[in-house]
């Protein structure tokens, strides 16, 4: 979305508005000066014995006001302001089109699943009351408790961490140690390291040493560098803030650890770190503008879009929305689908199933790989799963 164009238009409006305002103020000041001057004249005459022709004075005032011509001065700048405002409005409509119906197709959505996704989002954000209220409104309160309980535990741990209490997190890590190790996570070490640093900072050297030998030694071989640094901290008990290891005391370490815990917690639940709802909305925000643009261009071909298997335009999504690879067959130049999956040939090259069937005359004869001199037997090709 070209927000810079909107910003420029907005800046033009504010500029014109300021100009109009200052011009109006100038005109008002001039009028005030003329009137005050006449009032002064009248006042001074009243204080003397001179007679004054009021009509003449007022006519002179009228003439000088006509000379100033405040209305014509203000009209010009006001016109410019109105023009800029109109342009801004049009640009706004163009970029922030509220009607997105052109860019989506009507799909039968299972309302129950949708409710679950929304409730899941509330619970994983820690908005338990809203989640419960939502589930009761949609009449699915019985499934709410099951969905909510793991996230309740997670937020209790995170809340304790906010209060610099790692006990609940350490208990959770100890309970799930094996699963965490299997998934290649080092959060158990990170939690124990943080606890060790906390003990050290409180100035208890012997307690820190005992803690290290009990909880850090299992990692001494696999994470030797980390352990060396942590053990080096023992030399600076109670004065870590003045040591070469002062970075370990940074408050941001707690935030990072909380994020990591959240990630690993969701991972153990078999869920993604970000809620499906937030991912969908964020991806949708990126995808909608090019789709809307495309649909405006292809306004007359609505039915074609409704029946397409894939998006009609290339949409660039950020890395965080790329969950799996896509494969485009080098022979047919088409993207692989469930019906036409990528197939690994015996030589190690990959083509789509339909291309292989075509080249092997429906698996009746051998064919040459288009990339190397190998003769390929279609029957020996294996389906690839990305």
């Amino acid at each position: 979305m070209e927000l810079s164009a909107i910003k420029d238009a907005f800046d033009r409006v504010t500029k014109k508005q300021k100009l109009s305002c200052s011009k109006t103020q100038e005109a008002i000041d001039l009028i005030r000066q003329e009137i005050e001057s006449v009032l002064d004249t009248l006042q001074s005459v009243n204080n003397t014995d001179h007679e004054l022709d009021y009509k003449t004075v007022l006519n002179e005032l009228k003439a000088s006001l006509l000379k100033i011509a405040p209305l014509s001065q203000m009209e010009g700048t006001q016109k410019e302001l109105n023009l800029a405002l109109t342009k801004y409005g049009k640009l706004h409509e163009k970029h922030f089109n509220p009607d997105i119906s052109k860019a989506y197709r009507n799909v039968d959505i299972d309302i129950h699943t949708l409710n679950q996704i929304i409730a899941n989002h509330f619970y994983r954000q820690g908005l338990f009351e809203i989640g419960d209220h939502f589930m009761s409104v949609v009449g699915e309160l019985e499934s709410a408790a099951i969905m909510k309980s793991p996230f309740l535990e997670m937020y209790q741990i995170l809340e304790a961490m906010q209060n610099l209490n790692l006990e609940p997190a350490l208990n959770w890590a100890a309970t799930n140690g094996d699963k965490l190790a299997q998934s290649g996570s080092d959060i158990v070490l990170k939690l124990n390291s943080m606890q060790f640093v906390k003990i050290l900072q409180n100035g208890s050297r012997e307690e820190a040493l005992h803690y290290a030998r009990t909880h850090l030694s299992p990692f001494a071989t696999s994470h030797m560098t980390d352990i060396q640094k942590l053990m080096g901290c023992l030399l600076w008990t109670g004065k870590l803030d003045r040591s070469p290891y002062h970075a370990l005391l940074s408050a941001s370490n707690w935030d990072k650890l909380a994020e990591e815990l959240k990630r690993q917690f969701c991972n153990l639940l078999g869920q993604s770190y970000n809620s499906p709802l937030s991912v969908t909305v964020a991806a949708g925000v990126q995808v909608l503008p090019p789709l809307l643009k495309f649909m405006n261009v292809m306004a007359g071909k609505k039915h074609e879009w409704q029946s397409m298997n894939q998006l009609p335009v290339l949409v660039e999504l950020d890395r965080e929305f790329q969950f799996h690879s896509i494969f485009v067959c080098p022979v047919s130049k088409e993207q692989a689908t469930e019906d036409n999956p990528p197939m690994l040939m015996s030589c190690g090259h990959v083509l789509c199933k339909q291309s292989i069937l075509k080249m092997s005359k429906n698996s009746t004869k051998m064919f040459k790989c288009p990339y190397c001199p190998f003769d390929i037997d279609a029957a020996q090709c294996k389906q690839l799963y990305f």
Partner: protein
Amino acid sequence: MDLDPRQYENLAVNDNDIHNIVLSYLIHNCYKESVESFIACTGATQPADYLEDMDKRKRIFHFALEGNALKAIELTEQLAKDILENNKDLQFDLLSLHFVELVCSRKCTEALEFAQTKLGPFGKEPKYMEKLEDFMALLAYKEPEKSPMFHLLSLEYRQQVADSLNRAILAHLNLPSYTAMERLIQQATVVRQCLSQEAGKDAPPPFSLKDFLRS
């Protein structure tokens, strides 16, 4: 094919020179009894203070080798007051030997106390940080001998520190830090390598001290 003996067999070598080379090696390594026997047999003369210093050096060397670094430090300071003050690296190595000894004796609290008071000040200099972390990591293990830093507990490491200390004392006493024997072997090896490279394909095989000693 080795060097042709005819190229060097007529080169006269003074017996006194050989005696001095052997003697310097024995003195360097504090082989006191051997020195006395050698002098008695060959009639070579050496100043008396050499023997006195050698006795002290021998004790220092053995204390360091046994891991009794505090005793080694004490005797070193008696022999040469400012030697450790001017050599921070050596001071660190000796103190760390004592730390290792405490760790090996499972006196962890004492080791930690010692590390904080004596080794801690070295932590202000980045060059000691890495070494310090290695030593401190030993405390994380219930059996430091099985740790990845086990080499710090080895005789080889103590030998290395003891050698460094011995060389430092010798230098302080205005004696060569390296024996004439070592230097001659090093130089001979380099010369033979250079000759070998210059001679190209007609060169004798690369010089091997082991093979030379066998021949």
